[in-house]
């Protein structure tokens, strides 16, 4: 099925294993440590792939090393991995790269929604063939999970807690017995070594479809935090914005770092409800203001600057984007935003342009 999605340059968003094919190849080639069965490279190499080595391998995840180590070690012990975190903390990103590095395939993906049917987790039927041939192996449409079990690769489940509980619980047998029975055929699919599941779930939505404790205990949990420091977050945003800009073929934009720093500062201060110097308390808006949103504010700012401006990202290019990210609830968040502008942005040295631009965007 990878054949259907070709890594041609016209693809809007190549998969991790396509984008970083060279790095993966280099790591796997140089890797002489023992590999768990079914793995493309050793756990150590996977950690290096995620965190970068400062030279040829770029960092995919910027944050505590121990989190990635726990995640990789979890998968090596054939326990399922549950990545928790508020929206925009790189859960999906990490799961995609883990799957790419371990199995060389990050496409076996089930998206959890309120309407995800059981077929998406187990198998469905090709009804034309079912009617013509009756229940045969050929009429079975395998789910990504089933395919992963057959090929000994990693299946990814996005937003596990958004799924109805009964659908979630189909994972129970898969995770504990490592088998998926197909009673219609009197058969089962037994997982090949190397099969595992990475699920992501959202902290904020906790309680929507809380995992049953039976399912919960089949997962090891890693909580991905929001970036610890301004520097870390600026680095994440800068790196992602640069690579997104390349992918979208935006013209190179010089020196966006000032605006990146500004966007990150605004987001952090509002998120924490405290100015960076710790002197002023602020109200927090209802949105999460994640790093991912900061990245999208920056990319749209760059697009504005390159298509409608002179190519340099200025305060005016990001101001409207920031307002859009902050003001989710038009009444209460607008107050928060205006207060922030008047009490913090207005007074701050070198923020005059931003303050003016933000006032205009009001």
């Amino acid at each position: 099925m990878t054949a259907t999605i070709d890594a041609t340059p016209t693809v809007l968003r190549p998969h991790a294993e396509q984008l970083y094919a060279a790095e993966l190849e280099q790591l796997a080639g140089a890797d002489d440590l023992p590999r768990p069965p079914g793995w493309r490279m050793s756990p150590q190499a996977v950690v290096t792939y995620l965190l970068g080595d400062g030279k040829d391998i770029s960092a995919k995840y910027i944050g505590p090393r121990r989190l990635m180590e726990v995640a990789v070690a979890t998968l090596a012990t054939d326990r399922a991995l549950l990545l928790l975190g508020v929206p925009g903390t790189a859960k999906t990103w990490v799961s995609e790269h883990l799957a790419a590095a371990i199995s060389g395939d990050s496409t076996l993906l089930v998206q959890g929604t309120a309407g995800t049917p059981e077929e998406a987790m187990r198998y469905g039927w090709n009804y034309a063939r079912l009617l013509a041939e009756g229940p045969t192996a050929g009429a079975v449409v395998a789910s990504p999970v089933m395919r992963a079990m057959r090929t000994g690769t990693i299946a990814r489940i996005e937003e596990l807690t958004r799924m109805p509980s009964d659908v979630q619980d189909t994972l129970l047998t898969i995770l504990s017995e490592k088998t998926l029975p197909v009673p219609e055929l009197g058969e089962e699919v037994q997982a090949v070594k190397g099969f595992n599941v990475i699920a992501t779930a959202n902290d904020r939505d906790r309680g929507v479809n809380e995992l049953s404790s039976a399912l919960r205990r089949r997962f090891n949990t890693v909580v991905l935090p929001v970036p610890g420091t301004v520097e870390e977050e600026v680095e994440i945003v800068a790196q992602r914005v640069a690579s997104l800009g390349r992918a979208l073929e935006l013209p190179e934009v010089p020196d966006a770092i000032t605006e990146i720093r500004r966007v990150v500062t605004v987001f952090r201060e509002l998120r924490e409800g405290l100015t960076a110097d710790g002197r002023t308390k602020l109200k927090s808006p209802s949105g999460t203001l994640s790093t991912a949103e900061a990245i999208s504010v920056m990319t749209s700012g760059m697009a504005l600057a390159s298509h409608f401006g002179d190519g340099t990202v200025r305060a005016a290019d990001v101001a409207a984007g920031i307002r859009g990210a902050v003001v989710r609830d038009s009444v209460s968040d607008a107050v928060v935003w205006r207060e922030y502008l008047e009490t913090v942005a207005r007074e701050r040295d070198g923020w005059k342009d931003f303050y003016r631009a933000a006032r205009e965007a009001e």
Partner: protein
Amino acid sequence: MSTDRVHVFGVRHHGPGSARALVRALDELRPDVILVEGPPEADGLVALAADERLEPPVALLAYPTNAAKGEHGRTASFWPFAVFSPEWQALRWAVSHDVPLRFCDLPAGHRFAARDTEPAGPLDGTGPVDPAAAQASPTGTGHDPDGSAEQSPASAGSEAGADAPAVPDDASPDSAEDELRIDPIAGLAQAAGYDDPERWWEDVIEHRRDVPPFAAVAEAMAAVREAAPAITEDLVREAYMRQVLRAALKEGHQRIAVVCGAWHVPALAGDLPPAKADAALLKGLPSTPTTVTWVPWTHGRLASWSGYGAGVTAPGWYHHLFTAEDQPVERWLVGVAGVLREEDLPVSSAHVIESARLADTLAVLRGRPLPGLAEVTEATRAVLCDGDDTRLELVQRKVVVGERLGAVPPDAPAVPLARDLDATARRLKLAQQALVSDHDLDLRKPNDLDRSRLLHRLRLLGVGWGTPVQRKSGKGTFWESWQLQWHPEYAVDLVAASAYGTTVARAATAKVVETSADADLATLTGLLESCLLAQLPDAQPTVLRNLSDRAALDTDVAQLMAAVPALARSLRYGDVRATSTDALAEVLTGLVTRIRLGLPGALTGLDDDAARAIREHLDATHEALNLLADRLPLRAEWLDTLARLVDRADLPGLLAGRLLRLLRDAGTLDADAAELRLARALTVGVPPVTAAGYVEGFLSGGGLLLVHDEALLTLTDRWLSGLAPDVFTAVLPLLRRTFAAFAAPERRAVGEQVRRLGTGGPRPKSDVDELGELDPARVARVLPTLELLLAAGRGAR
């Protein structure tokens, strides 16, 4: 040759691996004397280690026998021992094999003397764990780059070698060489390619159950020491150690075991240099008579976790490593699961199995021989705690640190602070009993006053022997009521507090000074009041200075206002003896100025609750400044500020009304001006709820105004009668709240006035009007009796 007779064991203080290896080495060597790094003054206490009632964690406490008067820094030093401390194991080995044991470090007396004479002297900071050292800097006496490994949070745990001196905040190392000395293990770990020295030591030494590490440690340390500069305090201490060693050799001991921090091994191993140089170095060192005793200790205090930088971050883990006979990781995880189950968290055996597997895999992934605390903690978090940090915190507190409490035999000498408390309590006839007893203290009596001060001081030290209670009957500023109950754990609290000083007063002073260093404004004003109640004049200047610094930085007007009443009380009633009132007045003036500047901004954009809170602050500040009207010229400026605010349209009704009332009562606004404003507030243009708030603000705290000012009453009445029915229902709760606060007679008087307004009848004669017809001379005769009655009445209320 001395080398064959001397065996130096370089250990890591509180290292369970070192302890285990040491016991094995001692069993093999069977020494005939053991020298241990520690204060020689404690030699007489070694025998107590045989007593089963001396149960670690315990600590050796050393303090100057006659603490200098007037000194209020922390003076005591502690050398804590846990079961897994190599030094403790050496002690136990010595007493159970009947082998003499001597402490060979520089006597604590020299340290104290050096500290007294020369705060930054060469001897300073060598030595024991002085919980003080790491934290004492704020007290002003803690310029003590105190050295010993045991305590330093800076080198926490990593002091293999360590007598690596801990460095208090104010003396951070300024060169790489200093850093190396402070943490020699870090240098070794770096050389071995580890980023975390703690882990390196664990991997190389603590997790090894086979090879005795001492030779390797000695060699490594020699290399490290070569690169490090010589520090006078180390040289002096090691000179002393060598002297003790020489004495032992002279006595003809054949197998001498020396147990010291790995850092000192190169100085003691091999052929000893000539004694002359050492003797010269030690000559003429000042000394102070010192007392040493055993005191109970806790795991919590061993851990830097709870703020006492004893240098062990995970005593529970170390204790486990030392005591578990096999399968340390599995046993540990089972223990953790047990703690979680006690809290009703669902943890099954399957969880434990999975967490053990994860810990193992992590160790392999990180290239470690065995899972260490880091791996086990990660596994606990990911599997047993579902990634939940709150649960992990519980595990940290209960298991990783542990709640172990040591014990000492009752015949061990008591700490000086406890003795001081005993003596004072006996003098004041207060019994330390577990039964609850109530005491009413009349502060006019010297004995009761002293009692009150003692109890206040103990509270400041965290010893809650007495709890202040509301007196049931009879109230006056000179009465104070306490409930007394003594708990056994106060003994440990006293030991901990004894680091602050040897008497209750001195310890409380040092504690207050330290607390004030990073307290917020409200805490500081509280401390200032406590200084007065507990009579700690020496602490007051520092608290005051911190208070004014903090006030300068604080931008929250409500916080600033919260600080005013206590300050004003201190100024008005306080016995401010040693501190000049000027300082207090200056701080208060600065505070009020800041409030006046910040007030306009603080009164807008408030919701109902916030406005109510500000109103209380306003009232309290206003009252406080009234109290001081004859002392400080602040009142006029304050009223001026209020007057400028009263007409602002954007104020919440409650606050606008309150301001008007305050100004009217103060006479800044006359009755006509007040009436005009109230009339304006009660017109149709103002939303009824705002108006009701205005009325509440204006009238709360006494309704007599309505009785006597007919114009105001008419206004209110007209507004109230003009309200539409549904609006009336909306404002009724507010009004009810306002009027319900009036005293019953006031309410009745207001009601009577309203009835009269309705009928247009004549104003009933009030008592006030009749006063004019009285004969002043005759009235004057009644006044003294009346005064007596009123004063008594106030007392009874």
